[in-house]
């Protein structure tokens, strides 16, 4: 320590260029006559030199910018406006996903009658007619979500192969806990997770890879009328498999061939069952 402890802050201030004119003149005058303080200043400046190396800065991890962009997108509601039809909340009245007018008409009747829940006949009609119709629309949405996630390079909000990071990430974002098993040893490495929308509700999208293919696994709470058991289908060149387990409904979507996607389903179901 220097013989002049009271001068120490001023020496740091001088090295940092933070002193006003009066203090600068005073400390410089003192330095001329004090070897201790000159040595002290030299040490401060040597240390500052050491600390000026850029390698002390930790570069941001690769996925961070994408995560922040996703936060801004989500907050501002500007997320992929081009691809995602904007008035999400109004979707039930919007026949966009339903090619023919009949489907839209039935759907509106369903929503209209939803307010008048007393009508037993209408309820029966819903139970019988709607699952098929909404399913047709849902498949389109699923394929669109899958394609969109690939097109805009926004496959995942949380990019990690660590399932212990993906699972808690969904915490608070969706009101259910999608299982995220590790399947890398079976050739389906985990790529991350993403928040997506189906039928205007937030769903968890867990992303796995198979070689160069991407599998989007959409998870949402199963509806009471959902059919159990796996159903696979093909739409616009993509394969889809739907199944339910533990109160959740799963939709796996990929350009993988149906056989491999089924393998994925079996592995996933086996790992989550245990």
């Amino acid at each position, binding site marked *: 320590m220097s013989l002049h402890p009271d001068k120490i802050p001023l020496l740091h201030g001088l090295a*940092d260029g933070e002193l006003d004119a009066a203090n600068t003149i005073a400390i410089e005058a003192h330095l001329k006559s004090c070897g201790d303080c000159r040595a002290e200043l030299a040490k401060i400046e040597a240390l500052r030199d050491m*600390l000026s190396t850029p390698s002390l800065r930790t570069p941001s*991890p690769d996925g961070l910018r994408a995560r*922040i962009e996703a936060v801004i997108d989500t907050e501002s509601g500007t997320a992929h406006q081009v691809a995602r039809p904007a008035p999400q909340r109004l979707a039930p009245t919007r026949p966009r996903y339903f090619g023919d007018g009949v489907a839209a008409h039935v759907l509106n009747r369903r929503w209209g009658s939803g307010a008048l829940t007393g009508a037993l006949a209408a309820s029966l009609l819903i139970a019988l007619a709607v699952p098929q119709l909404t399913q047709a629309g849902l498949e389109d949405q699923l394929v669109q979500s899958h394609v969109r996630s690939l097109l805009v390079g926004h496959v995942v909000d949380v990019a990690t192969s660590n399932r212990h990071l993906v699972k808690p990430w969904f915490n608070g974002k969706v009101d259910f806990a999608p299982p995220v098993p590790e399947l890398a040893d079976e050739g389906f490495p985990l790529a991350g997770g993403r928040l997506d929308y189906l039928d205007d509700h937030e769903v968890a999208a867990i992303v796995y890879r198979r070689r160069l293919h991407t599998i989007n696994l959409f998870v949402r709470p199963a509806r009471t009328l959902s059919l159990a058991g796996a159903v696979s289908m093909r739409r616009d060149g993509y394969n889809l498999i739907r199944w339910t387990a533990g109160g959740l409904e799963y939709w796996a979507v990929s350009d993988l061939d149906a056989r491999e996607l089924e393998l994925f389903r079996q592995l996933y179901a086996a790992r989550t069952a245990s």
Partner: protein
Amino acid sequence: MKGTGLFRPRLVFSADRAEAARTAEADKAARFRQAMLVHMDAAYNLARYLARDATIAEDIVQDAFLRAYRGFESWRGEAPKYWLLAIVRKCHLDHVAANRKGGPAASLDDWADAPPPQLVESHNPESLLAEKGEAVMLRTSIEQLPEPFRETLVLRELEELSYKEIAAITEVPIGTVMSRLARAREMLHNLLIPGGWREARS
């Protein structure tokens, strides 16, 4: 599409208003990106030195950007980096407080086998230097400083903020910033060259 006719007037009306709101929101998002996103590296660097953990730092930065976006209206054109780093620091303190109260078990487990660096036996600077290079040694040494000194030093030396800005961010008078900085440099010097700061006398 007879069924949709009934809903159409309302739909168009709300769509117009929604459109206007969306334009304003998109404009805000664009301004926010332009002003703040360039300081992401600074935000991460500070979070990393404060939290001393890569994953936690990432969460802190993400949280900070979320809060910054939500509070963007309160930005009065002050230096964006300074404004953003103040939020990063708050997020860090909140994170620490949340975990102290008994946060999720997973993160407590993660910390259980990793004592805070200042409790680790003093490294041998020479072997560290030979092993990992000067930057790693410097970084490790900075991480060993107690938090008030570490944060002041990082804000000054790495983020190059002024005393005044550091005082505002850390919510202490400028005099305290000066004494913390002096003390931080002294401690760091002693870590790098044990006994070196006052080698003439000890």
